[in-house]
């Protein structure tokens, strides 16, 4: 298990490295000069040249990357052009907000998805199954941003039940914080619930057919024990893998929702920075999010091993 963890950790670090290189390259390939953005369209060529030099943008791209990563290792993510602030502290401020929202969405949608999928499979062909399957099949097709916009329109503007936008720390005003949370969490979770429910349903249905489930029945175990001890645990193995994969999907939805609902998280910051070619923020964000996704995938792999002994004992 320990060597497994070590191997996975090294692998993770390697992956994060690659991701930062790719995002660095991409930022330099897409058109638009950050210096022009900063100085405005009327800047003289000399001024532009001057600033490029100050920012190190006249250096070869490989050198720029090495310079950046070297500084990152020393805790310096650089300064934002638009906020004129340290990228590190900008991230630090916003990261907890995104983490808070994404964790709630992830946990909630996984639990609800699994419960829905199991009910659907166990009551196969019944009313509950039809409703859940209908939801699961449509939910996958509905994008988060659409849900967010429609949600704001109906519950925020028309009915006035929920705040239209904004974010409050749960440590400040918990009630307000929860109310503001409902819309974005709902919008990002729906597609996820649908994906998880579908996978759980099909995997549960397949598991119920297995020989070991018949063995469990032939021992005289209660239906409940057969289903929720013997079948479910096996059925969850592919679901766990899926949850790891949907995380990236969830974060994508989160970015857009943060922008729509005006939530001061990493997502909104990154979207804004990308539009302004504030590339140090984008770089820093990619690094942090990439690391976070990799860590969660690591957790998923470990969970996988916990559920399935065949993996653990390889």
């Amino acid at each position, binding site marked *: 298990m320990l060597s497994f963890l070590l191997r996975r950790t090294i692998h993770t670090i390697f992956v994060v490295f690659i991701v930062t290189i790719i995002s660095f390259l991409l930022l330099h390939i897409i058109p638009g000069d950050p210096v022009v953005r900063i100085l405005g369209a009327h800047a003289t060529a000399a001024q532009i040249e001057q600033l490029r030099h100050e920012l190190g943008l006249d250096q070869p791209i490989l050198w720029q990357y090495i310079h950046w990563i070297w500084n990152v290792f020393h805790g310096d993510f650089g300064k934002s052009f638009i906020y004129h602030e340290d990228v590190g502290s900008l991230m630090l401020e916003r990261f907890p907000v995104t983490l808070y929202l994404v964790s709630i969405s992830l946990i909630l949608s996984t639990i609800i998805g699994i419960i829905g999928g199991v009910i659907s499979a166990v009551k196969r062909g019944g009313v509950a199954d039809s409703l859940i399957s209908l939801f699961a099949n449509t939910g996958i097709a509905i994008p988060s941003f659409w849900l967010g916009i429609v949600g704001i329109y109906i519950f925020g503007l028309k009915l006035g039940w929920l705040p239209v936008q904004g974010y409050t720390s749960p440590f400040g005003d918990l009630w307000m914080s929860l109310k503001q949370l409902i819309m974005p969490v709902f919008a990002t979770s729906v597609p996820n619930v649908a994906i998880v429910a579908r996978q759980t349903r099909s995997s549960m249905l397949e598991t119920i057919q297995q020989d070991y489930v018949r063995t469990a029945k*032939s021992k005289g175990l209660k239906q409940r024990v057969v289903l929720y001890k013997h079948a479910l645990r096996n059925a969850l193995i592919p679901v766990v893998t899926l949850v790891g994969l949907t995380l990236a999907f969830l974060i994508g939805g989160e970015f857009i929702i943060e922008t729509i609902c005006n939530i001061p998280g990493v997502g909104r910051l990154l979207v804004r920075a990308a539009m302004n070619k504030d590339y140090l923020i984008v770089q820093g964000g990619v690094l942090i999010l990439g690391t976070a996704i990799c860590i969660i995938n690591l957790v998923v792999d470990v969970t996988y091993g916990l559920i399935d002994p065949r993996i653990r004992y390889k």
Partner: protein
Amino acid sequence: MAPLLEVKDLRVTFDTMNGLVKAVDGVSFTIDKGEIVGLVGESGCGKSVSQMAITQLVATPPGKIVSGEVIFEGRDLLKYHPESNMMRDVRGGQIGMIFQEPMTSFNPVFTIGEQIMESLRLHLKLSRSAARKRAIEVLEEVGIPDASVRINNYPHQFSGGMRQRAMIAMALSCSPKLVIADEPTTALDVTTQAQVLDIMMKMVEHYHNALIIVTHNLGIIARHAQRINVMYAGRIVESGPSEEVFLNPGHPYTIALMKSVPRLDEKRGRQLIPISGIPPNLINMPPICSFKPRCPMVDACQSLSDPELRPVGKNHSVRCHLNISGQNSGTIFE
């Protein structure tokens, strides 16, 4: 004395896309306490389904136990709901099952020990530690080396033969009065087969469990079973004491079957003769003898009707119009 189990006119159907499959079509048989009965027949003739129906383990839908009685120790099990306490008490506690597929019959995510202990705790109400002790004991009895260590292994850490031994241990752990072994060794290689069968027979004889053994291995039946039932197309076509059936088979199908499978206890070099034709489709069976299209003695048979199971000797009955039993028929077409 009343038999331990009496199955009367059992009928099981499957509702499939092609039509209603009459997988078990009026099967009746009995087994006494401590008796060993062999059940043979071609693939798809309804052996497994008829055995699963005894403890109502047939998947419903698509399956359906249409009619019949399964009288076990005086009670008709089919009168109870499949999930009733009575039925669950019988399963594992009174009737132990051993299935064909050792590779997939254990749950991969629980240890062998946990799975055996689960039965013991449920039926014998043992504590965790007592169940563990007993599980180690039964594993030792079926010949698992280092049982006290191996009990913590997961199924994938066991070989096929060991898994099937463990399966036997699990089925026998609660001392059921009846054990149903459905082709317990078919999936194993030949040497392992012999060992595992040997262990199973020793265990059953030692604990005096009654045993229904479904197998293609006629040698096993000749050696261990007191009686034999031969199934064809969802019905029993011949039933009798195994010695009698081997010496004087009364159904052409039984004879053909005996010619088609090797017997371990026999002289080598006998030519195996496959049964010609294909097993009938169990959908829309015409009301004639189901073996007629394949019967090698069809020329001698004048009757067009569907034969009934009729007695031809002491405890020996046959579903055939002809009278071939009693003339040392085992040697016909040799």
